[in-house]
């Protein structure tokens, strides 16, 4: 209930009370015979009038109709806008210095100062997030200027595991045949390329140890730097996955998988059947429901799969990740079983050669590898090196329910995964992938297998980065912070959030890494500097502007209720006059029967009543 309503109610109540008093008085007058209906009617009429006048004196209504149109100057407005005659010009803080306008801190203030506005014409680049909500109340006319060529959209990688390969996606606007480069923290070019026809491109880099890293994306055209942006990468040490490797026979693929996984810090349990009940590898584990629950992910070849279908599927329903691989060409039974899992398998049976992607040239490869050690010296395949003989099943995994992943250089799909219960199962059609580790392509081997395991492994709580591009100086909402969230910026300054319904607003003052601490959990986010990615910001604001209404609302939304500019003094004068009239009318004897004799009676009565 607003103040106005409260006051109006009080005044109504007072009027009712006054009427009641007048009525009682009249009844008394009737008894004494001094009642006058005309006087009563006048008094009765004057009461609501006085109340109304007092109300309007307190809350004066809009006086006169203001202009229905405003021109809003935003950033990038032409300096000539002030000289053009037209609707009043409002200068938002972003607008350049233009003479002849009214400066306001924001759009909402401008609308309050100009009640009755129904349409605003936005000049310049458009309204920012601060003013978008205020602009919803009016019709907006906006003719967007062309976007500046630059980065239209940037998608930094989500959380990257330590040592992992990541991909940065971005879109360019208005830049055909521009070169894009990803610069690593040491200032070396780690990937370069050019955008496709629609301006999209993907660049890859590799992470090192856990921590916050900023790569740099550079856009060049004809050797000229067009734009450069920070690409924040949050690298985490993920929990050790518990991996089960099951194979129907010993072989090099199992050997190198086991080596790779144990070097990467997995808890590996390997079980290779050597026939006749003899098993090689690690100490035997029970492969029943309880035993499989101990693992996060399992890599099972086609021969081991045949005997363990039931327990494995049941475990996947409970959350286990399962990667199925082929040891060679698969038989019809295996194929139909895999199809029964929901994978479409199309293509010829048998084994087809796999087209390996070309190794990157030495300068780039050097930025992707870390330093070597005695146990694992740097082993880089160069483009002219021998390509190993790696095969794949002729079958292409697919199907409506499956998510495709991993492609070879020829575009043939090598894997797909799908959900079963709360777990996931993936299919990998590569054969003899271990050859990659022997020919300097250990990075590709790791990318493939880590990609497969990442897709399916049992979920686990981990530190995640807050997605999205944020700019310094803009409000952002941080949700899921419970009752107590705290943000720490790169300089170590801490800000306590005031949560409302689990979310808190935060205005980052400076660019850089920030950390949101909620209890013990930690969520980092990166704030771009205020002038970073101008094209992307302009495109975002423009999209928000495009969603604003362009039709004139029926009534001026702001005006009547919040109008403060209407002048109140006429009402005060009118109220004073009316009140004086009322007072005079009540005191005067106009309309009363002139009973002069009765006048001394009253004091007599009074004295009489006072006397006893």
């Amino acid at each position: 209930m607003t103040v106005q309503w409260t006051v109006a109610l009080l005044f109504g109540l007072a009027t009712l009370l006054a009427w009641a008093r007048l009525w009682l008085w009249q009844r008394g007058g009737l008894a004494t015979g001094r009642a006058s209906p005309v006087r009563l009617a006048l008094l009765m009429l004057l009461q609501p009038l006085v109340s109304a006048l007092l109300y309007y004196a307190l809350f004066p209504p809009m006086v006169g109709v203001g202009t229905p149109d405003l021109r809003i100057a935003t950033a990038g407005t032409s300096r000539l806008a002030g000289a053009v005659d037209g609707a009043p010009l409002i200068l938002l803080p972003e607008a350049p210095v233009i003479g002849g306008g009214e400066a306001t801190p924001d759009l909402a203030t401008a609308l309050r100062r100009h009640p009755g506005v129904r349409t605003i014409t936005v000049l310049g680049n458009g309204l920012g997030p601060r003013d978008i909500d205020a602009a919803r109340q009016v019709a907006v006319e906006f003719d967007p200027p062309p976007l500046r060529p630059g980065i239209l959209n940037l998608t930094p990688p989500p959380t990257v595991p330590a040592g992992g390969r990541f991909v940065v996606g971005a879109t360019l606007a208005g830049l055909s045949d521009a070169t894009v480069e990803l610069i690593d923290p040491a200032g070396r070019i780690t990937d370069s390329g050019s955008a496709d026809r629609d301006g999209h491109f993907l660049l890859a880099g590799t992470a090192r140890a856990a921590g916050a890293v900023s790569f740099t994306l550079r856009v060049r055209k004809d050797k000229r730097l067009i734009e450069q942006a920070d690409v924040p990468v949050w690298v985490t040490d993920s929990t050790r996955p518990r991996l089960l490797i099951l194979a129907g026979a010993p072989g090099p693929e199992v050997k190198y998988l086991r080596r790779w996984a144990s070097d990467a810090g997995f808890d590996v349990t390997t079980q290779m059947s050597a026939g006749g009940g003899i098993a090689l590898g690690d100490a035997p584990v029970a492969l029943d429901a309880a035993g499989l629950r101990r693992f996060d992910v399992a890599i099972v070849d086609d021969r081991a799969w045949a005997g363990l279908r039931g327990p494995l599927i049941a475990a996947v329903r409970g959350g286990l990740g399962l990667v199925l691989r082929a040891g060679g060409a698969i038989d019809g039974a295996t194929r139909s079983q895999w199809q029964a899992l929901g994978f479409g398998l199309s293509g010829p049976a048998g084994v087809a050669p796999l087209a390996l992607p070309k190794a990157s040239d030495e300068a780039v490869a050097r930025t992707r590898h870390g330093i070597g050690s005695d146990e694992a010296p740097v082993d880089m395949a160069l483009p002219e090196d021998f390509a190993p003989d790696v095969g794949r099943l002729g079958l292409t995994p697919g199907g409506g329910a499956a998510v495709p992943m991993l492609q070879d250089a020829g575009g043939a799909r090598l894997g797909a995964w799908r959900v079963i219960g709360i777990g996931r199962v993936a299919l990998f059609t590569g054969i003899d992938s271990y050859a990659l580790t022997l020919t300097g392509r250990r990075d590709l081997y790791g990318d493939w297998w880590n990609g497969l395991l990442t897709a399916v492994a049992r979920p686990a709580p981990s530190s995640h980065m807050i997605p999205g591009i944020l700019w310094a100086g803009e409000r952002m909402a941080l949700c899921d912070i419970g009752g107590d969230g705290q943000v720490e910026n790169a300089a170590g300054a801490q800000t306590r959030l005031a949560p409302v319904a689990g979310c808190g607003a935060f205005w980052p003052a400076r660019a850089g890494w920030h950390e949101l601490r909620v209890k013990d959990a930690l969520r980092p986010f990166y704030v771009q500097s205020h002038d970073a990615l101008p094209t992307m910001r302009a495109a975002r604001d423009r999209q928000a502007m495009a969603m604003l209404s362009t039709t004139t609302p029926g009534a001026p939304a702001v005006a009547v209720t919040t109008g403060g500019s209407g002048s109140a003094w006429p009402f005060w004068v009118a109220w004073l006059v009316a009140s004086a009239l009322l007072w005079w009318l009540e005191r005067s004897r106009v309309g009363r029967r002139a009973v002069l004799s009765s006048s001394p009676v009253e004091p007599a009565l009074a004295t009489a009543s006072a006397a006893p």
Partner: protein
Amino acid sequence: MTALLAHWIAPARRRALADTLALAMPLLIAGGVVGWRWGGLVITLLIVAIGSATTILIARRSAARFDRAWLIRSLDNSRPELEDSSALLFAEDAPLAPLQVLQRTRIAARIDQGVPDDLRPGWSRRTLIAVSIIAATLIIAALLWPRPDEGPPTLAAAQEGLPARPGIPRLVAQNLRIIPPSYTGLPLRDSASLDARAPQGARLEWTLRFDPQPSAAVLTMLAGQPLSLRRDGETWIASRTLDASFLYRVDPTAARGPTPPLHRIDAIADAPPQVKALSPTASLSMVTSGQRNWTPAFAATDDYGVAATARLRVTLAIGEGENVTFSEREIAVTGSGPARDRRFAPRLDFSSFGFVAGGDMVVQLIVRDNRAPTPQEVRGPSMILRWPSIKEPESGGMEGMVNTTLPAYFRSQRQIIIDAESLIKQKRGITPDRYIMRSASIGGDQQILRGRYSQFLGGEEEGEPPLPTADGHQEDDGHDHGGPPKQPSTGFGAPEDVLGDFGHPHDDSPASSLDPETRAILKQAVDEMWQSERELKQGRPDLALPFAYKALRFIKEVQQATRIFLSRVGPELPPIDATRRMTGKREGLASRTLAIAPVEGRDGPAAAAWRALGDGLDAIRGPIALGALEEWTRTNAGRLPDALALSGAIDSVRSDPACMACRARLRAQLWTAMERPLARPARRRPADAGGARYLGAIGSAQ
């Protein structure tokens, strides 16, 4: 008349030319020496060329002064007997008066009393002596003039960027002289900067000036012993030999003043020479017929120079089969061309090495560079020259398996013809029955031979052409057909089929090894054999002979046309007999645990410092303890791409912990100095209650 004039003028002109040239020669030489001394060879050539041209011009002009007027004047002056009338002798072609003609005849008779040489001017001896002395002085001065880089160096202003404080000595001027090792042939170099790249083994000489004069000054090495500077008048000097890259700073204050910046000296190691074979380009080459010697050519390149002589190791492999003898010797070869890119092309005479047919000659060039004190030695690629044996056609598995064709079979077809011809000759002496029988026997041989050839065509010629009598003769026509056709008896031609009997041929059929052309010829041969066989079996060897000859001719064509290439394929293993699996002895076989030890990543201090320097969770905004990182850098220098730069960056952060640029530089260096651990999967977040219900619902629907 002009001939006479020329005769009298020539000696004088020659003398004038010679005199001018003699005067110019010392000046030209002096100019050349001066130019060479200050400008090098190009300037010398330029000076000499321009000087020579000018000299020739001047000489020609001075010679041109000796003309007709001069001659007449000189003759009239020096020879009274000419009666001042010599002008008549050398007159232009103007018409002469009769008196003039008379006088000229008198004079002409007298003029030959003198010789033209009397008229030539004398040598300008004094001038020549003076010019020679000047030239000699110039040459001596030029040779003795001090070289600019041999004297004390000129100092450049220091750029240490340190604030001047009263009483604290400060580097104000500097010079770094780099004297490369003499074998490199590089000139001495003065560097105005204290950072430099120099060849390994170079001598470094610092000349520094401080203000005010310190009591002692040292060059502090970031790793290693400090090098103290020696005072020499106003300047301080120090020197050392560059054996490895290092970082240092100039400290005149005994660590009392502000920390001076680091300087870096990079040692450029001498690269070993590279040897490349120019010809032949393939490592294996064959002796061509008539070849008597071999000249392999090699190019050897090096950054400073390849030694002029190299050794050529010649290995001879003589003999065949298992009886091969090796002999090895080294000969010295001399290269040609510039020191950095020498060519070696030794000529190897077969006779002097004892290289004969059936042998291999392997040569390898061993070159050294001119590094002192120990030259680097590099062996080039081995080049093989093969002289195939005359007796045996070349084989040996280098170019694929080659099988020469079927000699026995060809002889057999000839044998059939010989047999048939002898039978025809003996026809009169034997009974007709015996004649027919022997003819049929030869026909049998022909049949076997045809069968052998049919195999080469994939057996498709096996079916005999239907006989005229076989009309309507069906498989089920009610009488016995005598069982399946017998295999051709073994005997003639069979021993050659060793492969078929004791092994199995790896190609699909012998026919697959024939090209279509050969196949067509062979088919014609088989057709002819058919005809021949039919006639022989009917006892008509005379009629069979033309066909037999035709068959032989076709087969000879095949022989000349082709060698048969057998395709190489892998072994075809017999199918697994499932019933025999796991039936052997299995004692001692049991499940086994295979041990595996994971490789641990080892960039702990680097990663920790990386995080501490960043702006993330583990960032340390104050001073950072870098001792562990420095120790790690020292011990792992071999693994790091640029350990020196990392050490420098560590030092700069340590000396100024608040310098954000230094921290950023160190962080960039650390990025290059970290291992890339093998990635573990980034785990997806567990589904919340609603998500789990949803997944459960769609999972149970399947």
